[in-house]
């Protein structure tokens, strides 16, 4: 199912080298290196506390690692900050949903267009000049995403009133609204039932297929990871213990020991 014919996996788009991150005495990540290729679905898995979310936070600049470099689209840097990450086409979702709960789904997704807005504050406030034309264009993009993720029925519903599974989808929608080249998903299926998980898998695959978005995915659910990922990196206690295709990872003895259970 994941292998959909002519979706071409390209060159390395993101490379992290020898990243180490610690909080005081706690070593969250130790000497981690891996790469992500263009258009691929790359999973990072590992038991609780393995450092998966920390790794994502390093990639999009929330944490500043003590050691190591990040190379994104050929540009090497030690520290990525969140604004630079967003401006360079990296969008993300969060493990604990981080939406504006009092706003409607539509408005929440609209905020994803923030970086694309050219009109000044005054123009927007008075809805004159560029603001008018721009808003229509942004609304069109947002409507396409609403259609894509099948959120029409909750378009004007405040997010606070939505069930958990739909909120997760709204978060994905907001990330997509930024038209990212790379999407970081932090446990998109956590806490979902079977049906919601299936829907989410479909949406992740469709996003990857239709927009060619590179996807870096953290996930607990092994079934999901093995089904939809092109390559999987495995972390344990802040160290990388395995890397490769789902089949390779599955037969890696270290991974079996650390994650899938002994024997």
């Amino acid at each position, binding site marked *: 199912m994941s292998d*959909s*014919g*002519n*979706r071409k996996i390209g060159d390395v788009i993101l490379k992290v080298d020898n990243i180490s991150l610690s909080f005081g005495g706690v070593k969250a990540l130790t000497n981690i290196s891996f790469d992500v290729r263009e258009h691929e679905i790359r999973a990072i898995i590992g038991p609780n506390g393995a450092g998966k979310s920390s790794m994502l936070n390093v990639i999009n600049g929330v944490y500043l690692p003590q050691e190591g470099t990040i190379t994104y689209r050929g540009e090497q840097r030690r520290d990525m900050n969140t604004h630079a990450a967003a401006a360079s086409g990296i969008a993300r979702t969060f493990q604990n949903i981080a939406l504006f709960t009092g706003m409607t789904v539509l408005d929440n997704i609209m905020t994803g267009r923030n970086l694309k807005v050219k009109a000044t504050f005054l123009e927007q406030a008075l809805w004159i000049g560029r603001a008018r034309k721009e808003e229509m264009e942004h*609304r*069109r993009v947002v*409507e*396409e995403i*609403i*259609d*894509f993720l*099948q959120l*029409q*029925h909750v*378009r*004007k519903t405040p997010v606070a009133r939505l069930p958990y599974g739909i909120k997760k989808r709204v978060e994905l929608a907001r990330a997509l609204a930024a038209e990212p080249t790379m999407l970081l998903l932090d446990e998109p299926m956590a806490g979902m039932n*079977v*049906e919601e998980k*299936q829907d989410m898998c*479909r949406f992740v695959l*469709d996003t990857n*297929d*239709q927009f060619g978005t590179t996807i870096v995915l953290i996930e607990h659910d092994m079934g999901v990871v093995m089904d939809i990922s092109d390559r999987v990196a495995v972390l344990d206690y802040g160290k990388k213990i395995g890397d490769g295709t789902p089949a390779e990872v599955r037969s890696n003895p270290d991974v079996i020991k650390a994650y899938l259970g002994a024997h």
Partner: protein
Amino acid sequence: MAEATTFPRLLRAHASARPTAPALREKYLGIWQTWTWSETQTEVREMACGLAALGFKRGDNLAIIGDNRPQLYMAFASAQCLGGVAVPMYQDAVADEMTYVLDNAEVKFAIVEDQEQVDKLLEAREKGSHVDHIIFSDPRGLRNYNAPGLQSLDSLRELGRKWDKEHAGTFDAELEKGTSKDVSVMLYTSGTTGKPKGVCQTHEAFIVAAQGGVAFDKLVATDNVLSYLPMAWVGDHLFSYAQWLVAGFTVNCPESAETVMIDLREIGPTYYFAPPRVFEGLLTNVMIRMEDASKLKRWLFDKFMAVAKRSGANILDGNEVSAGDKLMYALGNLFVYGPLKNTLGMSRIRVAYTAGAAIGPDLFRFYRSIGINLKQLYGQTETCAYVTLQPDRQIKFDSVGKAAPSVEVKLAENGEVLVRGPMVLKEYYKRPDATAESIDKEGYFHTGDAGVFDTEGHLKIIDRAKDVGRLASGAMFAPNYIENKLKFFPHIKEAVCFGHDKDNVMAFINIDLTAVGNWAERRNLVYSGYIDLAGKAEVYDLIRDCVEKANAELATEGELSHSQIARFLVLHKELDPDDDELTRTRKVRRGFIAEKYGPLVDALFTGKTVQHIETQVKFEDGRTGSIAADIKIMGAKRFPAVTKAAA
């Protein structure tokens, strides 16, 4: 009375008489998009020519599967332009169910909505079906499919434009060849018993039925309908296709199945058709929201609903009403009924129909009392959903009205309703035995429903003729009738009654998760899900009250007083069409259920108080699992029979 015409000719006439009037609308990307009659005609022509280019010819069947979409309604016409037959199929059917119909109808061409349907057809193809050409309207997720014969609707139309140029005049010649006696559509019956049968209906049948209905209710070109019921259902075909092309009104397609309520409000249809369960769902929602409303609002609502109950229906029927009541009703309209109708999206409705199952008297009266002209009709797939209609101002909640224009209705000796007229089916597809069985020598179609005429000539349907049984005592037992009584309680979603050849009547109950869930929340009753809630002692008490109320009513109904429910249980799972317990139109398959839950039925009749059961369930993705539960059984109070005079 109907001049010999066909649906493609009707479409052509609208396109030339009113080319810029709106024919179809669909909400897309949050905006209502319109197809004018001339645009509709052009698209139909392109689709038809595209099909012709692929080799579709006179007499071929075209499968149509998906939610209500303008392109799919056009697909009906495109097949008919070429003298083909449209075969709409239920969009939520699983691949296996589809395979049967595809094979039975020898379908080689299919126009479908999206990837979901394409996947099912490809699965059917693997199992040996010969669906050579699959055309989809929504390309999402299908970019990398390269199955042979698979293409998008856009590319079909492109092909059609080219073919039309190369074969100038062929399309028009094909359209002219069509006659009103040709089969226009084949609708598969839901199959309460046995395999589904293809009901062949001619252009004439549906056009006569549509013309009758249009004249009866004075439908005009400026009317609007919202089409959201399955396209494979005869009701939708009559209301959103046949009447659309006869009256020339506008058909509006919702954005998605989940947005129907929102779309209903935006469109404000003037003509509306829904099975009772939709009206019931709407009312349940209103009642739940009212319970959460402020005291003042609740007081206003209760006060004015009492006024409406007293005089609303009379005002609607044009009967004499006192000036004081008129004034109160006008105030009520200002404060309650008007805003309520607006919320429901029913402000502009001139005529609304319900059919397909019995509607609860309270439910029916509620809508009429707030000024919605809700009426009942009766019909089957085999009669184009057109046998009897309730004339304005002659509305009774327990009858289905008088014979519609050009229909002859009579009763057989055993009470079965017989129907004759142009709307009766031509035949069951490839089933001469079934055709001969249901149409007699005089041309009467045997409906299988048992009915009676009242003194004013209104038909009243009691039950399926074959379902009407006898208790061991010999008293009449009409399970449907009792089940409907139970289902009229908002807390009960489904009910199944047993009692044929037995001493007493027993019942399975399905609670309504929304209504009972809300009721439980209000009482701080904690539950973890459907099974847990269904087994709660408090819920059993709630349901027992409902059952006993139904018993009290039955006690006043003569022979049926013997059918009072002795014992009941609340099922641990919802009855579901995916598990074959309901038909796709949500009718209870009593025999199947009795077999599947045999131990429960036995436990009811043998007087046990608890019974363990393990049940197979099918998930939406086709996998199966099982759930187990210990089910409690409870007795209900029965009442001595009361004669009408005493009541």
